[in-house]
């Protein structure tokens, strides 16, 4: 049994790493390609490994490699070497750790044991997120301060003020949410959202608490230092803000840390407001009970989707020069797709034919939920990117006005209304 | 549950408290003095929490929480005072804040 325990824990940690660290290059790619498409251009699509360019994803890895192998340059005016060195680490680690409490799936039951599908099995996940979001600002503040540079210092001052201002509203929005859910355990929160209200609408947080959702999303953008709240970077005003003086992998850590924080924010948003790992209208128990139907549905749907996807690949993934090796990519991709379809269909077919044990069902359901979570996470990250390439940056005073004069009163009023509603109608 | 002796916590808290006092007395930088004060509050909190754990009563933790809330309020007021004082004196040396000093009126 210990082996199972250890393996589940390892799986969890790997998942967390995957979703946070592994997501970073993907997010970089998504950011670039989405920006390209939004601005009617292509974005990076040229870099390849043996002809495989995966729509330009390889470019991200190439950039990573470049950052790792670049010269670690430090300007002569930087006296605080230790702090200068440790600042990006703080940003990266705190962002990374804040991801660790997200539940990827419902409690996994293997045999008699129950495993919580979280990187860190804590039952106060929301607070953990808040704590680490608070800590991550140290990286920015210290990085900017130790750079011994007026733009960097301005950037860190802005970051400090911004985080302190928006953390308040964020916490208060969360409080109203927690009143609604009656728990701070993220798994409880997700399970609460598996229900239905009025019989047909998923009881997601965004429907239960639209105001809190909007405030939380806005403040999450601020906490993650994403546009339109990225005045700490503010490259049009203060060069590059806190990371002006950074280069190579130190900058890389800031860079990755930002995407990890964004990913963590998305994960928390998904968990709190968009049903977490739940598939809409289909709860964990439903999945387990009607696993046969689910498998049949997958057997039917997967080839259809793959067919559409293949068509899209053939249509769009072309290379202008006929004799280039990159033109072979589509061919190989379709082959892999077909192989995967065949494998999945055969596997599921065998399950259907021979029947499945409960453990297998559980694991399969968990995998499906993880997949759901991943999809939602990606979509949420896409929203981050989408917003970034749509909205302009706030001015500093507008930012503070928004934080203190709009979000704070609204969130307090929301707590009030929520509390009254809870008292009046019961939890 | 407690493998570590209870007195270890107390000892640690006492030492932290003493460090806070030493900091208050020996430093001129008002920020450091403030942090020393907070250090003393923290050491008291540690004693409270460990006593709470020892006696199995939540009261200690609740008092510690109140102390934290008060510390937060204190921080806000303190820092705003510092901001206005710094605007006035352009110094963070606590010895410069002596406007109320008796200037030989008798």
């Amino acid at each position, binding site marked *: 049994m210990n082996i199972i325990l250890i393996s589940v824990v390892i799986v969890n940690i790997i998942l967390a790493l995957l979703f946070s660290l592994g997501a970073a290059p993907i997010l970089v790619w998504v950011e670039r390609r989405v920006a390209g498409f939004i601005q009617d251009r292509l974005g990076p699509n040229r870099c390849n490994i043996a002809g495989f360019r995966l729509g330009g994803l390889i470019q991200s890895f190439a950039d990573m490699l470049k950052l790792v192998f670049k010269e670690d340059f430090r300007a002569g005016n930087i006296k605080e070497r230790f702090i200068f060195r440790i600042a990006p680490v703080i940003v990266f680690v705190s962002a990374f750790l804040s991801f660790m409490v997200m539940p990827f799936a419902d409690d996994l039951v293997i045999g008699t044991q129950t495993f919580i599908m979280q990187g860190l099995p804590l039952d106060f996940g929301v607070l953990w997120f808040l704590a680490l979001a608070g800590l991550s600002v140290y990286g920015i503040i210290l990085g900017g301060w130790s750079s011994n540079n007026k733009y960097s210092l301005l950037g860190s001052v802005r970051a400090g003020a911004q985080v302190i201002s928006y953390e308040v509203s964020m916490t208060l929005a969360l409080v109203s949410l927690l009143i609604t859910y009656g728990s701070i355990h993220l798994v409880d929160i997700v399970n609460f959202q598996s229900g239905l209200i009025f019989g047909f609408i998923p009881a997601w947080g965004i429907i239960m608490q639209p105001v809190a959702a909007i405030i939380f999303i806005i403040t999450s953008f601020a906490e993650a230092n994403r546009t339109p709240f990225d005045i700490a970077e503010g490259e049009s005003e203060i060069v590059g803000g806190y990371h002006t003086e950074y280069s190579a992998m130190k900058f890389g850590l800031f860079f990755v840390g930002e995407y990890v924080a964004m990913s963590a924010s998305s994960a928390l948003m998904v968990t709190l407001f968009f049903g977490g790992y739940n598939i809409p209208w289909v709860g964990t128990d439903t999945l387990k009970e009607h696993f046969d139907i689910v498998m049949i549905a997958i057997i039917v749907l997967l080839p259809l989707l793959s067919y559409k996807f293949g068509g899209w690949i053939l249509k769009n993934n072309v290379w202008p020069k006929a004799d280039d090796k990159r033109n072979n990519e589509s061919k190989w991709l379709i082959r892999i797709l077909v192989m995967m379809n065949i494998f999945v269909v055969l596997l599921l077919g065998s399950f259907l034919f021979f029947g499945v044990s409960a453990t297998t069902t559980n694991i399969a359901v968990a995998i499906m939920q993880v997949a759901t979570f991943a999809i939602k996470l990606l979509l949420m990250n896409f929203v981050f990117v989408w917003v970034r390439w749509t909205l302009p940056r706030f001015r500093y005073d507008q930012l503070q006005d928004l934080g203190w004069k709009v979000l704070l009163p609204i969130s307090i009023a929301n707590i009030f209304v929520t509390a009254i509603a809870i008292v009046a109608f019961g939890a | 549950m407690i493998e570590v002796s209870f007195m270890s916590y107390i000892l640690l808290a006492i030492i932290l408290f003493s460090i806070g*006092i030493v900091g*208050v007395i020996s430093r001129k930088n008002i920020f450091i003095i403030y942090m020393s004060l907070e250090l003393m509050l923290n050491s008291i909190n540690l004693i409270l929490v460990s006593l709470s754990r020892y006696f199995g009563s939540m009261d200690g933790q609740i008092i510690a929480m109140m102390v934290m809330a008060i510390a937060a309020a204190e921080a806000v007021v303190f820092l705003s005072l510092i901001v206005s004082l710094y605007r006035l004196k352009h110094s963070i040396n606590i010895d410069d*804040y002596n406007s*109320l000093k008796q200037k030989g009126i008798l």
Partner: protein
Amino acid sequence: MSSNFLSWIVLIPLFSSILLGAMYLYSISVKKIADRYFTFFALLAPMASFFIGFLFFLGLLNGNGEYIYEPYTWLGVNGYIISMGFLGDKLSIFMVLFVTFIGSMIHIYASGYMKGDDGYGKFFSYFNLFMASMLLLVLANSPIIMFIGWEGVGLCSYLLIGFYFTEPLNVVAGNKAFIANRVGDLGFLVGIVYLFFYVGKLGFDYGALEDYVSIVPNHILVIIGISLFIGAMGKSAQIPLYVWLPDAMAGPTPVSALIHAATMVTAGVYMVARFHFLYDLIPHVGVFIAYIGAFSSLFAAIIAMKQTDIKKILAYSTISQLGYMFIAVGLGAYSTGLFHVFTHAFFKALLFMGAGAVIIALHHEQNIFKMGGLRKKIPLIYSVMLVGTLAISGIPPFSGFFSKDEVLLKAYNHNEYLIYGIGLFTAGLTAYYMFRLFFVTFEGKNYKERKMQNISWSMKAPLVILAIGAAFAGFVGFPKIFGGANLIDSWLEAWSGAPTHIEFSADIMLMSVSVLAGLIGISVAYFKFFKYDFNQDIKESGLVYNKFYIDEIIDFLIVRRMRDLSTFVAVVIDDGFIDKTVMSLSNGFINLGRRVGRMQSANTRAYAFFMLVGLSSFSIYLILKLGK
């Protein structure tokens, strides 16, 4: 007649006073108010009081015992209760009647006398305040309340003596009166306090005092009696506290007439009569009072013989007459004393007002040796002054004769022959100096002719009324031995003291002797002054003229010594000892504080370090103390 109207007797003049004061302030600060409005309110008050008093008088006549009205508790501490109480018995209503009557007359007179004065409203405000205080004194049902009135009349006396306060001499006279009165008031207060200590718990109105005074030890009673009499001395100008009264003549003449002749100075007599139950227990103190009265009487008469100021002569005569009253009350014949008060009020008020009329007529000339031959100029004044003078001289059938004779009779009857002798001699002196005044003023030769000022009817009318009173008031106390009904004695039955036992013939003889003494005095005066030659020099020197140098002696013995003592205290004790001690103490603290203050370096960390040192020492102490 409901007893709560008693308070209105006091309150009407009081309200009138306040109203007049407010009007006066309005008049001087905002807009001038015509004198007639002041006159109206001023005259209304004493007349109304007289009217109410008269109603009470009728009530008492109809057989009611006494009226007591206690509207509220004035003080109530731990069982000691002092009510604001009004007592309307025969004595007080008697006093109220004549006070308000004489007061009304003098008010009318004053309205003429003060006409055109700048302080017209102020004068009547003070006057009515005096009326209220006097009536409160009279109607009070406990010594404490009486003391309020007592002090009130003293205050009004001071205010009115110094009415023309722009003259320094008037202010000095006012101060003198006030200070002399303070000495007496202290005695009075001591007496009250003693009394209060012994019977205060049992109740402090006169009824209760009368019931419980017997529990006070005798020697204490003596102290109380003498203390109270000291108060009476001050108020009624007896030896040795008489000195203020002649100087008090600095005030306007109506003031002299009302306060310093008719009413206030009799407060002492009234007070002794009011405390008759106390003095009855200590007859030897009464005799002492009688002797004081007799000597005051003689002393004042001797001084009066040589005076030249018309008002001063009358003032000394007042002291002399008050002496007679104290003879009577000292010997226990309170009703007799009060009878003399009654008659004296008429003729002395008459004399003062007449003198005032003369003074007015002569443009404020007060020296009798600058008058002369006024008989033809102001015949009405002449005739009323004659009535008054005859009355004071004790010539039958004028009122003075009856009361003075009664006093002498009581003295004789008490076997106090010395007092009788003094009284008789004084009666002769009285006749002499009064007729000296009269003859010098109205007769004489070689006097200077001068233009006379017209005297208004508002001054003359009260004179006439009072002259009638002076002439016939004595018949109220017509002696029984002549078959009359001594109405005073029967009215004040409770105060009449021991009945006189004397033969008719002896009485006739005594009367004759006193009349004879008066006639001798008159004849001496006639021969000496009827044809007084105003061209001769006036001798203004000698022991008697200088009032036996009493003022100078007092100045030397008391005032200078007091000043020396004060100087000694101020220079040696206060400056040299107390100030030095206190200042060195305070300087020591300042020096100490300055040294300690150096520790207040505004160095916060230093403070913290002091705290730490304290904490550390305390901890070491605790470790050592607790040990182990």
